[in-house]
C-alpha cells in the first residue's frame, strides 16, 4: 500500500468527554468501558462524498424563503469557511443546519415548549461549500428555550451544524452560538469542552463585512474538521 497520512487525534481538552454529569442525559448514554483504540484503515479514511443531488432543488440555503410568507424574527446571514487543521479549505463538503424559530420552538413533534410554531419557518437547510470551503445561508436568529436539564435551564440561542468532510473520521456535528449571549456560562452543553479557547471557537462573531444594508446582520462561523498528521504512516 502507498503510505498514507493518518488523521490527527484531538488535542487534550479540545473535544468533550462522553460523560459530562452537568448534562444529565450523558449519564445513561455514555459508554462506561474504555474505547478500543485502533489504527485508521481505508474504511475510516474514506467516507461519503455528496454532490448537488444531495442538496436538491429549492431554497435550502435560505430558511426565510421556504414557505409562502416570511418567518417572524430577526433575519441574519450566517457564513464562514470549512477548513482542515492545516488551514486548508474543505471544498464541496455537505453542510446540514437546523434550528428553532425566533420564539425558541422547534418544528418537531417532541418539542412541547409553550411557544408558538411559525407556519413560515421549518428551520432546516443544507448546502455544499464552494471550492474555497465557503458556505453561506440566510435564516432568522433562533430564540433561547427551556430544557429541564436542571432548575431554570435555558439553552443559549444556537444553530446545529452537521458536516461531512473527506473521510468518515472528519464527520462533525456541532452547534454555533451567538456572541455576548448571557446564557453561555450556564449551559452544560456549551461548557462540556474543557478548553475555554475551544469553547470560544463555537461562538460566531458579528461581522460588518457580511452585514447587508437594509437587510440583515452578518455572523461568521468558521469550522475546522480533523486534518492529517504531518508524517505518513504505512497503511
Amino acid at each position, binding site marked *: 500500500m502507498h503510505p498514507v497520512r493518518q488523521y490527527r487525534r484531538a488535542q487534550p481538552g479540545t473535544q468533550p468527554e462522553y460523560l459530562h454529569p452537568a448534562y444529565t*442525559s450523558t*449519564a445513561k448514554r455514555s459508554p462506561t468501558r474504555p474505547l478500543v483504540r485502533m489504527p485508521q484503515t481505508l474504511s475510516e479514511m*474514506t467516507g461519503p462524498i455528496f454532490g448537488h443531488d444531495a442538496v436538491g432543488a429549492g431554497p435550502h440555503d435560505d430558511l426565510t424563503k421556504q414557505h409562502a410568507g416570511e418567518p417572524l424574527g430577526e433575519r441574519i446571514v450566517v457564513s464562514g469557511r470549512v477548513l482542515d487543521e492545516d488551514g486548508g479549505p474543505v471544498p464541496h463538503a455537505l453542510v*446540514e443546519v437546523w434550528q428553532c424559530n425566533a420564539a425558541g420552538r422547534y418544528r*418537531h413533534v417532541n418539542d412541547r415548549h409553550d411557544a408558538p410554531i411559525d407556519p413560515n419557518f421549518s428551520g432546516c437547510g443544507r448546502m455544499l461549500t464552494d471550492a474555497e470551503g465557503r458556505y453561506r445561508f440566510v435564516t432568522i436568529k433562533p430564540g433561547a428555550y427551556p430544557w429541564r436539564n436542571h432548575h431554570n435551564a435555558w439553552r443559549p440561542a444556537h444553530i446545529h451544524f452537521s458536516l461531512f468532510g473527506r473521510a468518515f473520521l472528519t464527520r462533525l456535528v456541532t452547534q454555533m452560538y451567538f456572541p455576548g449571549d448571557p446564557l453561555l456560562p450556564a449551559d452544560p452543553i456549551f461548557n462540556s469542552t474543557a478548553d475555554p479557547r475551544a469553547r470560544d471557537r463555537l461562538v460566531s462573531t458579528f461581522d460588518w463585512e457580511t452585514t447587508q444594508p437594509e437587510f440583515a446582520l452578518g455572523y461568521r462561523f468558521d469550522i475546522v474538521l480533523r486534518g492529517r498528521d504531518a508524517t505518513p504512516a504505512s497503511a
Partner: protein
Amino acid sequence: MHLPATASQTVGPYFAIGLDALLRDDLAPTGVPGHRVTIAGRVLDGDGTPVTDALLELWQANAEGRYAHPDDRQERAADPRFHGFGRVSTDAAGAFRFATIVPGRVPGPDGALQAPHILVGVFMRGLLKQLVTRIYFPDDDATAQDPVLALVPIERRGTLIARPEPVGGFTWNVILQGEGETVFFDC
C-alpha cells in the same frame, strides 16, 4: 499552521428536522451486485431503556471491497450505483432497520485484508460526540482473522458481530452501557 478541530456538540433531540432529508435505509438499489442482507436492531441506554431518538450512519465498501471514494486507489471495480452511505433513525421502540449488501474485504492497517464490515457512527441526545463502532458478519473465516477485531478483548467481540435470524436477516444492537456494552472505537 495548526487549527484545532472544532469541538463536537450533541445532535440534541430535534435533529430529525435537519437530518431526515438524507435518511437512507436501502444502501443497495436494484441491480447492485452482492449478497443482500437486512440488519435490524435496537439502541438501548444504561437502564436497558430503548433510545427512541438515536441516529445511525453507515459506511461500507461495495461487494468487491471498493469504497466509492477517490482515496480508494485499489484496482477493483467501482459501481456508480453503490454509494455506500446509509442513515437511519430509531423509532418509538428504539428500533432501526436497513438493507444493504455484504461488503467485500478491504485492506487493513498492515496490508492484510479486513473481514467484511460496516462502519457505524452513532448520534443522539446525551452523546456530546459520535460513537464509532463496526458491524461484522458471523461464520466468516475472515472475521476470526480480522486485524481490528483482534484488538478487542475476546469476550467483547460478539458485540460487533451481527446475529443471523432464523427468519432471515441479521440482528445487531447498540448497547450503550452495562451488560453486553457495545465496543466503541477510538480511531
